[in-house]
């Protein structure tokens, strides 16, 4: 019988330190009670288990955690964060891990597409023709008074995304 052994070489002891440093400060206190998984709407219909994710994170199984697409099944409803008896900010921990995953190059294609729209238009969901028409029918400004109507404002937003490295982060990877 084959077993899923945890190889020592797969354990990165610095991983949990990095998570704590980034704000998941109580993650080490996890008692694996499973409250997080029991209230998770995604876990109710998929194999995603927040408890397992927390355990793997504490163990330091960095690559396994960051490369798994399960990390992206959290709808950030924050119920687990509210209910955790150890007051671990589980949702924040997941967001921190997602940031790390993206830094390692793990991005789901639809998310990269959303990020690109933000880079190009200043909106993750930009205006389209049908809705421009609907705005007109509703007797509102055809184009909303956002960056969509202010090219100079869009330029500011783009400059900010260049400064923070977001543009490079999204554009440098090969299309996945």
């Amino acid at each position, binding site marked *: 019988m084959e077993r899923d052994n945890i190889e020592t070489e797969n354990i990165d002891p610095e991983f949990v330190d990095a998570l704590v440093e980034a704000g998941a400060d109580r993650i080490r206190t996890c008692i694996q009670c499973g409250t997080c998984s029991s209230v998770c*709407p*995604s876990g109710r*219909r*998929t194999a995603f288990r927040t408890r397992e994710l927390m355990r793997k994170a504490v163990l330091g199984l960095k690559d396994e955690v960051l490369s798994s*697409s399960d990390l*992206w*099944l*959290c*709808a*950030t*409803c*924050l*119920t687990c*964060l*509210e209910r955790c008896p150890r007051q671990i*900010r589980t949702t924040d921990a997941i*967001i*921190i891990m*997602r*940031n790390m995953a*993206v830094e390692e190059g793990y*991005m*789901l294609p*639809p*998310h990269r*597409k*959303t*990020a690109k729209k*933000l880079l190009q238009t*200043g*909106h*993750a*969901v*930009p*205006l*389209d023709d049908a*809705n421009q028409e*609907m*705005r007109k*029918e*509703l007797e*509102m400004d055809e184009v*909303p*008074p*956002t*960056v969509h*109507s*202010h090219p100079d*404002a*869009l330029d*500011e*937003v783009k*400059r*900010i*995304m260049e*400064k*923070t490295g*977001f543009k490079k*982060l*999204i554009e440098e990877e090969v299309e996945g």
Partner: protein
Amino acid sequence: MTETQTYSFFLGCVMPNRFPNIEKSIRIVMPELGIVLEDLEGASCCPAPGVIRSFDEPTWLALASRNLALAEKAGHDIITGCNGCYGTFKEALHSVHEHPERLKEVQKILKDVGYKYKATSDAKHVVEIIYEKGTEAIKALVKRPLTGIKVAVHYGCHLLKPSKLRPWEQKQKHTFLDEIVEATGAESVKYKDKFTCCGAGGGVRASNATVSVDIAKEKLENVQDAEADCILDACSFCHLQFEASQMQLNKEMGEHKYQIPVIYLTQLIGLALGLDPDDLGLDKHVISTQSFLDKVLG
């Protein structure tokens, strides 16, 4: 804030660009309640807490702070009708208030594009300001009582959580939105798992549509079981989720099982105030609101 009732109206993405009918209802109903909305010219995406915060927190924080800086410049608090945008601003403010070094970093970035930022403008939700006005004030304005209308209230997540960073006195089993709904004369019905997520957030709708729509489906079925006349939300992204998921489910199954009108809070209040349904954009829904309107207009 009692000294001013003017707010910088933050639109976000989904509301102006996918559901302008909701935007219209907010724009016409809030002044009826004595709340002045000033456009936040040049605002961008909040940015989205699901994808953008998950991708790069410093970028998320810098762009959120720019939007807040626009409101600060206007001298108002920011107001939003989307739980996601609300969450972004509340969490972004908390982040810079708790971590002075992050505030400095953000100030440096914003200074380069011409902004002074002190993180002094707060973020408010449309619901929060309506509730501050008080249910008695709403009752006094009702011209068309929504008697006999059964409403399934959906709060969404980021309006309520993380509870430590939200203004509500209670941490769970909230009633404020039900109280507003009942001030219109309608009945807020009990239904199973009322406080669960719509399933759209966290980037799940974009990347895992099946899971996302299935979460919405469970909620919609619970609403059907309660025999509600509509599901009521106060978030443009939850609104998109309920409208679009019903259409997707009907298409997948080749039937018309899911026909629950999805009503935004200010549309319901607007009806109770006697406003015209078309002015409230109720003729521009994905799922027809006719059955609901027939009952309201009797």
